[in-house]
């Protein structure tokens, strides 16, 4: 089973964000693999271990994104594809998916996996759009995959504790729910092996597709508070005592 995993690189979780127009200042912060995508990568590696085949890690973005592709290779992906684009953060979901689908069309694959959404833009559309652009069946928020005889039995999460089983033919696109598996760490052996693995660099211009923006993030900003928070100060002990006092006599909830 040949699997392409789409992985995004996003600002590190604890990175202090300073806003610059409709994006952030990238100079002073670290980047990491988008956590929801790490579950998709893990699921791809497990499917490969069970069914054989190849795992291709695909990512789009500026040069720094290569580091995240390398991390995927260190965990066990066989090769990488880097769509090198400094303007990636400015693309709308359909534009990004159009480039990614054009790069995927050049590959032979049975399955495309994505994470549920990215921790930066959080559009959560890439997987569904890839299915549309590649004319493939798809399913999202997947909690289990059993592949057999050219089709899959999937467990899809619905809201409020409900689940549904779905049968889906291959090839297909699946968006993986976080928590589907336990993500592995890279081993030293894996990191060494990754050095010999290929990362193909592609430019968006070479893909032969044109994109038209359908939407634009005009600006981002820290939201204004709708609720007035009363901050309790002092040492932790003083703050805790004040809180209990407030909960008992002001909010009257304890």
């Amino acid at each position, binding site marked *: 089973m040949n699997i392409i995993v789409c992985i995004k690189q996003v600002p590190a979780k604890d990175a202090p964000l300073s806003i610059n127009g409709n994006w952030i200042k990238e100079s002073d912060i670290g980047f990491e693999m988008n*956590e929801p995508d790490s579950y998709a990568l893990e699921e791809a590696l497990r499917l490969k271990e069970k069914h054989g085949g190849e795992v291709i890690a695909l990512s789009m973005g500026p040069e720094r994104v290569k580091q995240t592709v390398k991390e995927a290779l260190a965990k066990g992906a066989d090769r990488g594809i880097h769509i090198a684009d400094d303007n990636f953060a400015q693309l709308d979901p359909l534009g990004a998916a159009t480039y990614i689908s054009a790069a995927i069309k050049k590959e032979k694959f049975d399955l495309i996996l994505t994470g549920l959404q990215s921790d930066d833009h*959080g559009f959560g559309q890439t997987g569904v759009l890839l299915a549309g652009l590649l004319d493939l069946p798809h*399913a999202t928020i997947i909690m289990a995959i059993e592949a057999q005889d050219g089709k899959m039995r999937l467990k899809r999460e619905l809201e409020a*504790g409900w689940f549904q089983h779905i049968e889906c033919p291959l090839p297909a696109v699946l968006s993986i729910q976080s928590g589907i598996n336990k993500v592995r760490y890279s081993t030293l052996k894996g990191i060494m092996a990754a050095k010999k693995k290929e990362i193909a660099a592609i430019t968006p211009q070479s893909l032969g597709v044109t994109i038209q923006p359908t939407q634009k993030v005009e600006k981002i900003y*820290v939201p204004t*508070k709708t609720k007035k*928070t*009363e901050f309790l100060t002092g040492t932790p002990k003083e703050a805790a005592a004040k809180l209990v006092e407030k*909960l008992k006599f002001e909010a009257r*909830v304890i």
Partner: protein
Amino acid sequence: MKILVVTEQRQNKWNNTSFETLAAAQQIAKDTSSTVSALVIGKGVASFADELAAKNVAEVLLVEHDLLENYTPDGYCVALKQVIESAKPDLVLFPHTYQVRDFAPKLAAMLGKGMIGDCIAYKNEGGKLVFVRQMFQGKTNADVTFQSAAPWFASFQAGAFRADLVEPNASGKAPVNAVSVNLTADQVRTKPLDLFKEAKSAVDLTQAPLIVAIGRGIKAPENIPQAEAVAKALGGEIAASRPICDEGWLPMERQIGSSGQTVAPKLYLALGISGAIQHVVGMKGARTIVAVNKDQNAPIFEIADYGIVADIFEVMPALTEALEKAKS
């Protein structure tokens, strides 16, 4: 402008966020001198259309087909594309449900359009519609505009608008118009099977009046007893944000948020929870919200009544002690 609201039902039950989106559509319509139509899709769902007809809408579109009995992304996309092409709405609104996430971006793309998903508000800036959505896990808001010609597609987050503000139909009843669609079995590539719930959970957090919830700030499973001590001193239940349950540090049944439980306790004490949207939608209805986080910019403080900016590992033991003292 013509606004179309695509509502959602499953197994003879409304997804109530449909009415929140209808309320949003009515407000936008008022602001922009537009009309609102509502759409019901499925099989044997005429009674749902009748219910919508009693609301302040210009018409209700009833889209029925044998192959639409159970939701599939292919079935919904093929059918709704035809409806949109014939009804020609300018703005198509959805509740931002798991189901909408599954098909609506593709539906928009089939028409060459984009979708602004998971919006929390809209603004009318001199006739131009601006949609507000969150980015960076709720740390920032973003103003987003459409760049291509109508139809435009957008979805609203649960809780962004109030369902009880949906206006009734002043003249009694709007017309219900059935729209026929062409759909064949070979166009529906996935097959929905059984719907089920996992084994019934031992705790029902929805009934707990006092909840102590932990997030990533707890750092390691061996620190959880410190939070459990706070819960015990309070007489409340322990709960968590998704990452904690994904790691297996607490069982899934203790998870609060869009994929877990939605709760509205008297008191919600959030320890080391940043306040990502997916978590907040599950607890913002709590009467009193307390947040303890060392990052004073954490989005959880946006909705907190009381806040302590500090290391939870210093606050937890102090709070346990103070709560025990208050009891005695």
